[in-house]
């Protein structure tokens, strides 16, 4: 078991206030994720898995606790919720790729431009280099011949592959994916999984993926179950082993 985690959630809780009263979406979550892991968080609809993912990628605010992520340069832990929303956006753009079930591509930009967008916003690459890199990423997801097409003119599976390529644009260590295969047929979903496994095995990326599909649990290097805002196998959430990453 590796001693240093890449991501660490300590006592994370999230409560939504509604007209009907307070609703606890996450209850005292503790979780550690090691580098190179392919972590699956499985749960039914409404279990709190997307909320948990939004705590990890900093899209939503937590009510209690902290989310720490190791910095690429020196391994120092950074509490992402201590950052402003703006700083978090920049940090996320550079360090964490995010993939959603609904792809979230900008409809007016072609595939190449969609992938270039994160590089443009974070100024990580020279514009010419960002174009080359976007083409390389499209090649990685085997869509280079569609580079100039708009998202509406390719299939759902292809759009999700473009979303993965966009998530990799700034070469982040971590990818988080919220039901990335939820709207795809099983064959296409298989291809997406192949891509994820390739990223973990060959590029050393860390992927956290949430899904409601219990049958996919076997494909993760580690799998956790969430129900009613609580991780069911609490001790497993803190044990990660890099050597098992992607072995299953």
């Amino acid at each position: 078991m590796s001693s240093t985690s890449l991501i660490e959630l300590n006592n994370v809780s999230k409560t939504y206030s509604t007209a009907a009263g307070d609703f606890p979406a996450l209850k005292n979550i503790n979780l550690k994720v090691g580098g190179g892991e392919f972590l699956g968080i499985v749960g039914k609809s409404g279990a709190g898995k997307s909320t948990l993912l939004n705590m990890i990628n900093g899209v939503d605010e937590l009510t209690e606790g902290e989310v720490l992520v190791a910095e690429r340069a020196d391994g120092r832990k950074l509490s992402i919720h201590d950052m402003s929303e703006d700083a978090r956006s920049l940090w996320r753009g550079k360090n964490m790729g995010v993939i959603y079930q609904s792809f979230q591509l900008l409809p007016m930009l072609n595939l190449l431009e969609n992938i270039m967008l994160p590089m443009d916003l974070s100024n990580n690459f020279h514009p010419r280099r960002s174009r080359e890199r976007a083409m390389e990423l499209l090649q990685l997801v085997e869509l280079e011949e569609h580079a100039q097409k708009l998202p509406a003119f390719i299939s759902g599976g292809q759009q999700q592959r473009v979303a993965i390529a966009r998530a990799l644009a700034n070469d982040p260590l971590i990818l988080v994916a919220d039901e990335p295969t939820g709207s795809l047929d099983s064959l296409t979903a298989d291809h997406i999984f192949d891509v994820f496994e390739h990223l973990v095995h060959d590029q050393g990326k860390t992927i956290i993926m949430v899904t409601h599909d219990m049958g996919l649990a076997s494909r993760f290097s580690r799998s956790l179950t969430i129900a009613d805002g609580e991780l069911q196998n609490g001790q497993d959430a803190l044990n990660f082993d890099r050597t098992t990453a992607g072995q299953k």
Partner: protein
Amino acid sequence: MRPRWRKVLHDLWDNKARTLLVVFSIAVGVFSIGVISGAYQIISNDMSASYAANHPANVELRTENFDDDVLSSIRNQRGVGEAEARRVVNFRVQKTGSEAWVSLDVVAVEDFDENRVNLLVPVSGGVKAEKDEVLLEKDALKKINAAVGDELLFEVSDGMTKKLKVVGIVQDVSTGAGDFLAPPFAYIDMKTLATLRQPELFNRAYVTVAEDQDNIVHIREVGADLKDKLEKNGTTVARTRFSETHKHPMGDTVNAILGILLALGILIVFLSSSLIANTLSALLSQHLRHIGVIKLVGGRKNQVFAMYFTLIMAFGILALMIAIPLGGQGAYGLALFVADTLRFNLLGYRIVPMALLIQIAVGLLVPIIAGLAPVISGSGITVLRALSGDLTGDENKPHKHDDREQVSWFDALLLRLTHMFAARGIHFPRPFIISLRNTFRRRGRLILTLFTLTMGGAIFIAVFNVRVTLHDYVGSIGSYFRADVTLDFDEPYRLREVKQYAMQVDGVQDAEGWQFISIELIYPDGSVAENANVLAPPAESKLVNPLITAGRWIRKDDVRKLAISEAALDPFPDLKPGDALRIKINGREEWWEVVGIFKFVDQEGILAYAPYEYISQVTNLANRSYAFRVVTEQHDRATQEIMAEKLDHYFRSQGFKVRKAESGLSSLDTASESLDTLVIFLLIMAILTAIVGAMGLTGTMGMNVLERTREIGIMRAIGADDRAVMRTVIAEGLVIGFISFVLAIFLSIPFTYALSDIVSTAVFQTPIKVVFTFLGYGIWLGLVLLLSVLGSILPARNAARLTIREVLAYE
């Protein structure tokens, strides 16, 4: 191009209807401001320059007949620069072969080659008339359809007509400038006077001062000296007019009116900015998901802000590309129209740098200011809210607490009303209730739309009220000219004799003799303040119905008493009934009591009334008069014209020396025409505001439909056909239009008062009684309902065209 800027470009290009709506909204405001500020600059510069270039007389003296010797003494007077003498006589003129007679002031010029004052500028043909030839001032062409080479018939005192040939059309921007009621001019050589049975003598002197031509005090001093000198030499001066070389007499009035138009232009900009704010707010609302994605992949608030700020700037630049050239043309067009109406020339087409700068500032700043709030709130939105894409509710309201379970006050009210009516057996169609409810769903947007449409409507209605108010005032000015026919003779006749003859003419009811005398009002220091014309009807005359503001009207037994027009308050601001006024009458200084003050058109100078009974003694014309007022059975303009003609012929046939007989209303025509010109300007601005309002409604309906695409899909899925969908959308537009109309009814009241007050002060130098007309309300109701339908049809058609699959798949 970087992807984020490509997105901006796509946002601009992909939704062309929205881009056009925003661009036109900005362009309308920029255009209005450009037209008015440009015209203001051109007119204020060219009006005085053109006037000055014509060497206008600084002093105009209207006198009894004088000759060359007197003219020489005028020229030799200290302080006089140039001096010309002319004879101005009014004639009835007819084009050969035409039936219509028109009234022209014929100016006899001593030497066209030596024209130094009130220059004549050639328009077509020659600029010099020989014996029995005539030049027409180009303004006269509006009254008499003549061209160079045509022959005109001039009616002379014995009833005969004399034929003069038109040899040229000229322009004279100085003579009669600023005189609302002046008839058009024609120019002849002095030698032609004999043909027209007129003595070869002058009755007007036009003088420029040698120095300080823009110093009105100096000009008045020179004028007063001249008047004294003439009167000492036995030449009575009936009236003097003073004007500065570089100040057109109508300059202040035009500037005041342009000021009103500018205020309306600013209002249009203001209204279009609310439309821009509405559209941009909807755009940001539609782009929430895009903003969420940008922020998700690393975009920061300032980057999102910069993208949408650039988009707004692009809207502004596109609007400027449309509005600047059109505004420049419009400004020159407006200036040309004003110049043509007021008889002055422009120095040529040009771009006015100040107007250009104002347009650029308005075109860029207005959308930025209007769009700032939605862009700041849009760019500051959290990723989660942006990605949730919650497009319902007020976009400016955070959705931490979802309280939409509660029924809004309007829905509750609607529900209660629906139940109340249903209990009485009245059932409203369900789609109509949906339309009503939809109308109030986006309250922020509804308020902005209603504001734009209501302002447009209120101005539109107010312009109609102002028009009626102005015409009512001119009509009431007509109450000073209630006689149906004005009959002037070349020599005095006994009152009873003229009345007896007049009653022989069919249709004549009464005739009364009036007197006329010119006086000077004297300041306490002895200097001449102003000239005034005193009209002297019989004290009991029913032909004057004065608008008295203080004191009383004249009485039969008044001796050295007069009622005076409000224009006298200019030189004597504290004047009130009971005050004694020092005047110069028949060369003598006397103290007269002011018994009343009445309203009149101040531009016509100071007018006073005194009883015939006393003035006829002053003029030694007891029971006699040169001027008579005739009352006929019918009072319409056409009958007046016929009766004038009949009386003219009858009196001439009986051996009277008739000078002219004209319809009592004729002098008011020019004033009415000038007011209509002003009303046209106001109406154009009102229509522009209405267009902005209609664009606002179209935009709102478009946005509402877009946001309710899913809802429309559900309606269609449960059986709503195309017509039902369209009806729901159009009914919503009509509800908004009708609410705006009700609000505009109320708002138009203060607008009418404010606009009437400003316009009447500019034109008449006095506030006037406001009159309301149903016409404006009726037209606006029809127009706003039409605009509401038109504004909703396109969005409604778009909604109806969507298939169920499309709308339910809509993101």
